[in-house]
């Protein structure tokens, strides 16, 4: 069947690491992709202040496709300790891999390789990128 949906990716989506709400979020952000109806809400709490503050806890609620779910789950696994800037760097790695079909650099989160087959499907790029946009906007807010 479609290589887009290999077992890893489906498992990643099912795992839904970080799904749920935080008790005391310091930032909350809802974003949707009107083209396909995907919607994600991200809640964050932080250590520190200002641009250097780091994600302490993350909670997300996804109403969306498997790609969006898997993307949120990977963020749930990796975002702890990240700054807005480092999240942005991960998004750029991912976006470059999708849009330019370039390889992921060694510094990218290893789990992002699950999205390599999405590069061929432009109409799905936004599904994968939406959770990154949401978490970055939340971290910057």
């Amino acid at each position: 069947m479609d290589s887009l949906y290999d077992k890893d990716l489906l498992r990643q989506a099912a795992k839904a690491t970080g799904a749920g709400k935080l008790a005391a979020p310091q930032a909350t952000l809802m974003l949707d992709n009107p083209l396909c109806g995907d919607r994600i809400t991200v809640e964050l709490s932080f250590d520190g202040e200002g641009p250097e503050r780091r994600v302490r806890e993350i909670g997300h609620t996804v109403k969306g496709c498997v790609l969006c779910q898997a993307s949120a789950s990977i963020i749930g696994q990796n975002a702890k300790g990240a700054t807005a800037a480092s999240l942005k760097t991960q998004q750029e790695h991912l976006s470059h891999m999708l849009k330019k079909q370039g390889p992921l650099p060694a510094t990218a989160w290893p789990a992002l390789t699950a999205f390599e087959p999405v590069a061929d499907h432009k109409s799905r790029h936004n599904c994968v990128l939406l959770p990154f946009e949401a978490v970055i906007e939340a971290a910057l807010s």
Partner: protein
Amino acid sequence: MGKFDPAPVRAQFPIFSAPLRPGVALHYLDNAATSQMPAVVMDAVRAHDATRRANVKRGVHTLAERATDAFEAARAKLARFLNAADPDEIVFTSGATGALNLAANSFGALLKAGDEVVLSVLEHHSNLVPWQMLRDRSGVVLRFLPATAEGHVDVGALGRTVTQRTKLIAVTHVSNVTGAITDVAAITRAAREVGARVLLDGSQRVSHGPVDVQTLGCDLYALSSHKMFGPNGVGALWGKAELLAQMPPFLGGGEMIRTVTLDRTTYAKPPHRFEAGTPPIAQAVGLGAAIDWMNTLDHGAVATHLGALTQRILKGLADLGGGNGRVRVVGPPGLHGRVPVVSFAVDGAHPHDICQMLDAHGVALRGGHHCAQPFMESCGLGGTTRASLAPYNDDGDVDALLNGLEDALAKLS
């Protein structure tokens, strides 16, 4: 009315002559988005461009006369297809969206603040956004007919929605989401009682054979060529001559004027008043060829054939996952009052994942809000998956759909 065999029809469509990908046949069930085009239509467009390409309406040389004749012949064919009283009641546009924007601007210019336009929550954005823009510009009030539980425009609500201030009821003839056919007689009756006009968005109706605007009793009718086996880039607005004559122009440019000075411009009669600039000539000729092609079909037999396929899809959806009710049809549950367009929602599975997984089986579906977000909201859905049929579809297409769905749902559980 004989039994309909889709095989010879399918053979006329070049798209089916090669596999979609090596080893994967195309099962095209996205006809409500765009239908495929038979070779005769492609041939007609090419013949036009190869033997009589020229600008129309003003040229006196041979090619220009031939091009104008072909363009006007296409107008006459479409007029007959719609049973219009006169070819000059047909305005060629860039598509249904172009036709609906023309209506909202040009008919809209006859309205004043406080006048009411009745739409339905089922409208395609193309028959909603232009009216919202009109509202924001001119203070016209929009009122909405709800949808029934089965996805029809709820004509039961006409009594409380249509008022003495209603100047137009503009609704879809057939819903592009649910496939439900609107009870037009109820609409025109309600409109007549208050002296309102009726516009029908026929985009999803014209794929299924000739329309009779005179029997329907509407005043304006919008359609798109690419949904009726014709080329992209052309559509039409039909309007009653007497109404078109009252409507001011919308787009300005060549060919729609009578005289132009720097200060003042007077306009040509309909339909030319509404056809600014070079029209989509070769595309209109292609649309004419598509109508000729459609006229070769026995539409009753086609409807029976597609009804049987629709029935198989409806039953197959109900049986999926052992009939656990995970799949819900959004639209009429049976064959009554519908065209062969079936939308469904699957618990815990996103339409885009379903479409993507089905694509691996060669099945082309559409998933999402189908440019009908308000209806989706009213159903509490983010989107649906939609299968839509055309005469070339066959049992093999339905098999591929149902088998593919079985697989996909297993994965997405």
